[in-house]
């Protein structure tokens, strides 16, 4: 990749909007070209300084209420004020009941069902060409990307010298909630590592299962769930899990 192309795509790269292949080409170029690498660092520095300093203006108190009143005046709803209010209360109660019931249903999902879900997610990520939302081998790009998208901050490790290199991250959905998915490469194999909070669980050893030809490893550490899945052999995937488990 030339310096000109790199310059043209620099903002797309910083914003995590290039595909995996392009991003890796950019990173190779940065390693070879100090001038472009400096420009990238500048831009990244400026962005991170700015992102903390840009105010997000909050709507004034009462705007939602005023808005609701104006919207209702425009609809048929306003003419049946009292029954509608009761209907709303009833709907609210029903909704609360439904949510409670659903939460009770999903909170203690057995590990076997979760393992199936994890494998399906892995397969889906490989098929749909939607492996990463933020394609980058730089963990300082991947980790902050999750800010504001999740209610927790996943630890993002990278182990290139051990042959497991970070390729990016994306949002996924498991166990009835949004989770962090980190993508790693080992030779031509892809590893998906899913992370989400497990507030009430104690630390556990790494457990291994096999599903549809994939190895699935699971452990809990520091009140976080970890699920690693890949077609990689069990020994190497175990080595990967060990690395993740010992780094924070």
């Amino acid at each position, binding site marked *: 990749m030339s310096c000109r192309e790199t310059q043209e795509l*620099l*903002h*797309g790269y910083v*914003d995590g*909007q290039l595909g995996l292949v392009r991003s890796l080409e950019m990173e190779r170029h940065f390693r070879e070209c100090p001038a472009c690498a400096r420009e990238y660092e*500048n*831009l990244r*520095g*400026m*962005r991170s*300084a*700015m*992102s*903390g*300093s*840009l*105010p*997000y*203006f*909050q*709507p*004034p108190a009462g*705007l*939602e209420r*005023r*808005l*609701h009143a*104006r*919207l*209702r005046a*425009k*609809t*048929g*709803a306003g003419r*049946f004020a009292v029954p*509608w209010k009761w*209907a709303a209360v009833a*709907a609210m109660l029903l909704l609360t009941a439904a949510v409670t019931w659903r939460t009770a249903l999903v909170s203690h999902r057995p590990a076997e069902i979760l393992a199936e879900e994890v494998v399906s997610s892995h397969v889906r990520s490989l098929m749909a060409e939607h492996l990463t939302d933020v394609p980058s081998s730089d963990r300082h790009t991947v980790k902050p990307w999750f800010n*504001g*998208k999740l209610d927790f901050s996943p630890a993002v490790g990278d182990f290139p010298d051990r042959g497991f290199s970070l390729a990016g991250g994306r949002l996924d959905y498991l166990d009835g909630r949004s989770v962090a998915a980190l993508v790693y490469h080992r030779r031509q194999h892809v590893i998906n590592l899913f992370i989400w909070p497990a507030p009430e669980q104690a630390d556990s050893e790494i457990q291994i299962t096999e599903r549809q030809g994939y190895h699935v490893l699971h452990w809990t550490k520091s009140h976080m769930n970890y699920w690693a899945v890949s077609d990689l052999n069990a020994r190497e995937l175990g080595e990967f899990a060990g690395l993740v488990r010992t780094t924070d």
Partner: protein
Amino acid sequence: MGVPGKEELAQFEQAVLPHLGAAYNLARWLTGNDPDAEDVVQESYLRALRFFPGFRGGNSRAWLLTIVRNTCYTWLRRNRMDDVTTELDEEVHGLDNITSNPEAVLMAAARTDMVTRALEELPMGLREIVILRELEGMSYQEIADVAAIPIGTVMSRLSRARARLQKLLTDANPTGARA
């Protein structure tokens, strides 16, 4: 088309009320003050309710912000012609009305103020892209949809906006520390 019923209103509110913060933030950045931002937001929601039957589901935030953006432009065209007609391709903004103040640079509040002023200095067409990207975290595709421009233009506008911001910030902060 008839008056929307209460079921439709409920559906509408469920889809777009969660994005009130995003709508207000965008309107506030584009109009530059609170009363105008509130007017624009109220008008946007009323418009959105009218257009709601045509909304096919999906990305309700992008859909709503498209309406907020267009309402802002209409509103500003009616009230403040200058803001809207500023040419994007010309260096029309003087850079000298941000005073240097090295002592204050260290203070976070001052920096917020400086970044805010620098962003307010940008023409609307650049400012809105920065807001959608940096504060809403939207993808280039989403920004392209909201602002009705091609993805390539999103990237080139971002690049121009950031270059200008960097210049405004370094000019305002000549001690050399990165803003």
